[in-house]
């Protein structure tokens, strides 16, 4: 069985969680000696050789293939109707959309050139790249023999659909996050449509959690029988013994992530206020940046807890490790989190975690306190309990390493291979 897999990014060049998940999955599949062709828009050459990598930027498109024309026809709507740029601020967005409106003819031309240099990022030409990626996918599907197609998230769904049209192989659409997770109720219609087309064109759908599965059933009209839940795992399940030493005497409670609506930072602030009122020997840290950062700073000032509540801004690499290591409690109050890998990182640092029930990771992580994101009383109470009652943090440390061993990518891959086999059969 040869699997043609379409991703958007692959470590070490990643900007989101998608690349990490793809890496873990491919690594797990390699453990089981699975044959994978992994396509990314742009290869950098320093990827770990776990699969037969295909650089979409290198693929030449053969225009004599008539079927490509139909594929293109179905794709053009992406160009015309959308100025979608995730992760751009409103100002940049406006500038960008003006430019695209002017340059539209150029866009078309470059897409139909023989080769196309993908950026492989989530930049302003994202929609164009997604379309071009689909065209390249069709070419790859024609060139490379395969028995199954596996596409990760909406960015590669058009590619998956195009490949299926050429080769006729069954398609698996893997949903790591939906537009509802990213944008709450104000969904981008174009992205939603692509997601919807992807999961409906697919022969089988994978969701990273039951939470995501429910979204797919309720919001995208996918039949529940067509969806398998495939939870994420941890790349390295070893416990990290770090030498970072806390420089303050107080206990530290940490939020680490993008400070955006779906991560629920305001619930963390409100819970902090409740704890600080009862217990002066604690500091709260909000690490990360995002569009709600200023509002959080305002609220902290308004509550008068700024001497106990600190903002670090965006953290990278070693700083992240240090933050986990010096934390006494890690809180992930996400409003909507398809999976959420960061609590598992905290567990690796022997840090007790509180996670919201509205996160996929809550479905697999037993060794955690789970609260509703809106229930700041329960959240505050859990924080207080973890800080004051020794038995519970001892317990977390004891069970943490045990628990991580259950969460290996090779287990996930074994489950995935079963889904592959079933999908090919039917």
């Amino acid at each position, binding site marked *: 069985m040869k699997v043609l897999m379409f991703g958007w990014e692959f470590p070490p060049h990643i900007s989101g969680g998608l690349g990490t998940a793809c890496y873990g999955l491919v690594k797990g599949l390699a453990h089981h000696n699975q044959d994978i062709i992994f396509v990314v828009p742009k290869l950098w050459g320093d990827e770990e050789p776990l699969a037969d990598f295909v650089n979409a930027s290198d693929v030449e498109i053969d225009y004599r293939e008539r079927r490509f024309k139909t594929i293109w026809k179905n794709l053009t709507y992406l160009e015309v109707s959308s100025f979608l740029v995730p992760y751009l601020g409103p100002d940049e967005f406006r500038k960008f959309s003006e430019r695209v409106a002017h340059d539209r003819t150029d866009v078309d031309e470059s897409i139909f050139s023989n080769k196309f240099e993908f950026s492989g990022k989530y930049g302003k030409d994202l929609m164009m790249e997604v379309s071009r990626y689909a065209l390249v996918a069709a070419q790859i599907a024609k060139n490379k023999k395969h028995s199954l197609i596996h596409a990760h998230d909406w960015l590669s769904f058009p590619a998956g659909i195009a490949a299926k049209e050429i080769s006729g192989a069954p398609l698996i659409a893997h949903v790591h996050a939906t537009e509802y997770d990213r944008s709450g109720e104000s969904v981008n219609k174009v992205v939603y449509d692509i997601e919807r087309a992807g999961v409906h064109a697919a022969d089988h759908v994978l969701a990273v959690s039951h939470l995501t599965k429910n979204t797919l059933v309720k919001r995208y009209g996918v039949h529940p029988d067509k969806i398998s839940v495939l939870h994420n795992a941890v790349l390295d399940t070893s416990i990290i013994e770090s030498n970072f030493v806390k420089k303050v005497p107080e206990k530290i409670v940490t939020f680490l992530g993008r400070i955006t609506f779906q991560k629920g930072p305001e619930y963390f602030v409100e819970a902090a206020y409740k704890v600080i009122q009862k217990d002066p020997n604690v500091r709260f840290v909000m690490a990360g940046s995002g569009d709600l950062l200023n509002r959080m700073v305002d609220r902290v000032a308004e509550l008068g807890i700024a001497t106990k509540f600190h903002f670090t801004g965006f953290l990278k690499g070693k700083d992240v490790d240090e933050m986990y290591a010096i934390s006494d409690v890690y809180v992930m109050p996400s409003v909507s989190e398809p999976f959420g890998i960061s609590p598992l990182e905290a567990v690796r640092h022997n840090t007790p975690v509180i996670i919201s029930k509205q996160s996929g990771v809550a479905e697999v992580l037993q060794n955690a306190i789970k609260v509703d994101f809106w229930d700041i009383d329960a959240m505050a109470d859990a924080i207080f*309990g973890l800080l004051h009652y020794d038995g519970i943090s001892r317990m977390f440390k004891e069970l943490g390493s045990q628990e991580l061993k259950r969460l290996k990518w090779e287990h996930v891959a074994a489950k995935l291979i079963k889904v592959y086999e079933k999908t090919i059969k039917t």
Partner: protein
Amino acid sequence: MRTICFYFQVHQPFRLKPYRFFDMGEDHYYWDDYGNKNIMRKIAKKCYLPMNALLLDLIHQYNGKFKVSFSISGVCLEQFEAYAPEVLDSFRQLVATGHVELLSETYAHALVSLKSKEEFQASVKKHQQKIKDLFNGYTPKVFRNTELIYSDGIGSMVSEFGYNTILTEGAKHVLGWKSPNFVYTNAHNENLKVLLKNFQLSDDIAFRFGNKSWPDYPLTTDKFTKWINALPKEEQVLNLFMDYETFGEHQWADTGIFEFMRALPHAVFNNTNYTFSTPSEVAENGKVVGKIHVPIPISWADEERDLTAWLGNDLQDEAFAKLYELKELVAKVDDPEIQRDWNYLQTSDHFYYMCTKFFSDGDIHAYFSPYETPYEAFINYMNVLSDFILRLKEYEQDKKSKK
């Protein structure tokens, strides 16, 4: 003469309400009255009332040849009084027939026997008094410790308290090749008779009765009497010990559990030479075959039949240690509410909810727990205990300042 001894454990804890740390020092009422009432009403309807009626029928029908025994915890009796007085009445009716034996235990269904002899005795006395008050001066003669927890040491204490019989689990690792179907005595004190639960046949009724994937499903009275006839002839006593909530609550009415029990005496009298006895009668008439050695405490819980359902993980051990640290302080406080809370807080169920074993197996624990995780159970309990400690300290301060 061969005999069957039915013993039913009747217990409901006072469950805690969600108690946040910011309630500490302000709210001193810990109990989930609404939840406790609802659960009591529900179980009364599904189990206590119909089963008590059924047993009363059977006792009348067989003119007292059918008999059973109960151990009802003090905290459960209190909840009958508050939420289901008609259940208490029906138990009184049963006891009044003279064919129902009531056993002694700790008032709060506590684990105190593992911690302090004085507290243990005080708690047993309190329970005795409660039974006396509610059941027309009745004095239990046989002891059943919380969840059948037993060891040689616990047996010695119980014997010193004046009891001559105790019930416990016929745990495999204690019995070895021996059979539970005899009367044994305590290893230190031969005056204390030890009755052992036949867990195979007890659990066939209590746990497996409604399980459709059990090879012996469905369990009929014919099958059951065939099994007990097949026991070696010299084995005289069959102790069937189980939760009373087996009937109608753990095994729902639609499994046929009530019909099974209704038909059982008839089948036993017709197909076998077994009679029915109360624990006192078994102790008096049964043949003593030897001592039973139990150096390390056993119980009837889980596969291990040990204490790990209540004690042993860090959560349980910390909560348990912190609770009993308060023993001396509490003894000095003459306040009915403090004394009440002290009792209710000792109930073993609080520690059962903190068990982490269900992470690997035993969803039994999850079924019985009002908490989603043992961590929540622990935090809630510790919050309450922290407030309780504050109150005790306030009393101490007041006393000092008065002097």
